[in-house]
């Protein structure tokens, strides 16, 4: 697990090499802006601070700046927000499940690591909902979702392959997301 380094940007810069050029420099120049953005994204100033620190730690500092460096930095952070939120959810669900199913616990260690049949059943039901939602996607959206998310093509690649514009690809993805949200979480 990465250690979050606290302290101001200058102190961070002194700790790591190659900070004067490349992505690290771009990060440092935009740190305040990133902090403001992630405060809007999370509505939690403490979380936002931790996200921004973590972005810095995850930078490939040896790499030359990528084409859209600002976008790259934002996206690392956005992925972190989601990963951390899902981990919190998982932990909370696990805690609740173990409380419900009456297992033994020694301090912070759970002796019985198995999720209860109830939790397993809930997970299975969730999986079925997801499968049904994906299977019932309109064909265009399904195709784009598969190419972009599962096969890992960029929007431009998908657009090229299907002979549609990037905007068209975006629209299909938005349709897919709307459909999934409605079917799975309504």
């Amino acid at each position, binding site marked *: 697990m990465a250690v979050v380094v606290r302290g101001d940007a200058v102190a961070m810069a002194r700790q790591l090499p190659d900070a004067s050029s490349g992505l690290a420099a771009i990060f440092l120049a935009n740190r305040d802006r990133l902090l403001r953005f992630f405060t809007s994204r999370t509505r939690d100033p403490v979380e936002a601070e931790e996200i921004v620190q973590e972005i810095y730690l995850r930078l490939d500092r040896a790499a030359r700046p990528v084409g859209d460096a600002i976008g790259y930095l934002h996206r690392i952070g956005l992925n972190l927000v989601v990963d951390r939120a899902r981990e919190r959810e998982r932990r909370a669900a696990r805690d609740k499940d173990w409380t419900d199913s009456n297992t033994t616990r020694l301090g912070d260690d759970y002796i019985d690591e198995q999720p209860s049949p109830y939790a397993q059943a809930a997970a299975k039901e969730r999986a079925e909902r997801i499968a049904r939602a994906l299977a019932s996607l309109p064909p265009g959206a399904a195709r784009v979702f598969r190419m972009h998310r599962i096969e890992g093509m960029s929007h431009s690649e998908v657009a090229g392959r299907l002979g549609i514009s990037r905007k068209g690809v*975006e629209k299909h993805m938005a349709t897919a997301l709307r459909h999934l*949200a409605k079917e799975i979480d309504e």
Partner: protein
Amino acid sequence: MNREQHSDIERDAGDWHARVSGGSEVDWDAFAQWLDAAPGHQPAYDRIALLDSEVTDWAKENGMPEAEDQPMPSPFTATRRWWLGGAVAASLMALVIGVPRLAGPPNDGLVTYATARDQRTINIAGSGKVRLDERSQLALAADGQVRMDHGAAYFDLRHNENRPIQIQSGTFTVRDIGTRFTVTRNQGQLFLAVEQGLVDVSWQDSSPIHLTAGQSFQGDEKTGAGEVSKIAPDTVGSWRDGQLVYDNAPLTQVAADLSRYMNKTVEVEPAIAHLRLSGILLIRNGPDLVDQISAILPVEARRSGDRIRLVGRSRR
């Protein structure tokens, strides 16, 4: 005053996320402005971003259900396949409900009931009720179909011409003719015990076996092999009263019940699988049950991780 609709916010959140996760240039200031513009915006975006992550992970691991390539199954076959579980089979059910499906939620009215540490009574409108034991699960459809997922259930039903009840337990189908009986499903085995009335049980497409009060059936889902035995009617579903009453019951059946109360997989060593248990066990708490059994039969429990194995007790 123009109030934003919930659906508009959801739509905008989806649009933003599609753009942001696409890899093209984004106006990050404009995005932040939208997030801040109203209280509902950020939570809506958060929900869709998390859901996207969850669905993408699932799809990467399980593959995209390919709706286009499946041959159109007959409703009966598709229903049958769906009961067998599996997320891909579930996608066939979506096809059958309303083809072509472009919008609207699937409305098969299927409600899943799962218990943790308490029993639960579920009403089946117009037909009677089901008592679900602890750590068990079944699903009820609006048309009277029941899917037994695991655990034990005591059915108390009035025969209804308009809504015959059919229970799918893996590859077995149990049909009631107005009866009281229990269905226990555990690790690919079905245990059926009839207190009153008539029950049919069939395996896949086979012709059914008829069971009456005082009969029990134990069957293997994979092979369909089964055995009919006698059971005292007043012992059927004794777990409803916190007891397990066994009269010459196979140890495998006992193990199936134990797994519910001990919340672990309970296996029986083949060497002792032929043993039968007669006696009354009190379901006080899980581990105690094995002690009660050891007092009656030469059997003891070996625990490893999340499994318990009943083995013959060695002579000392």
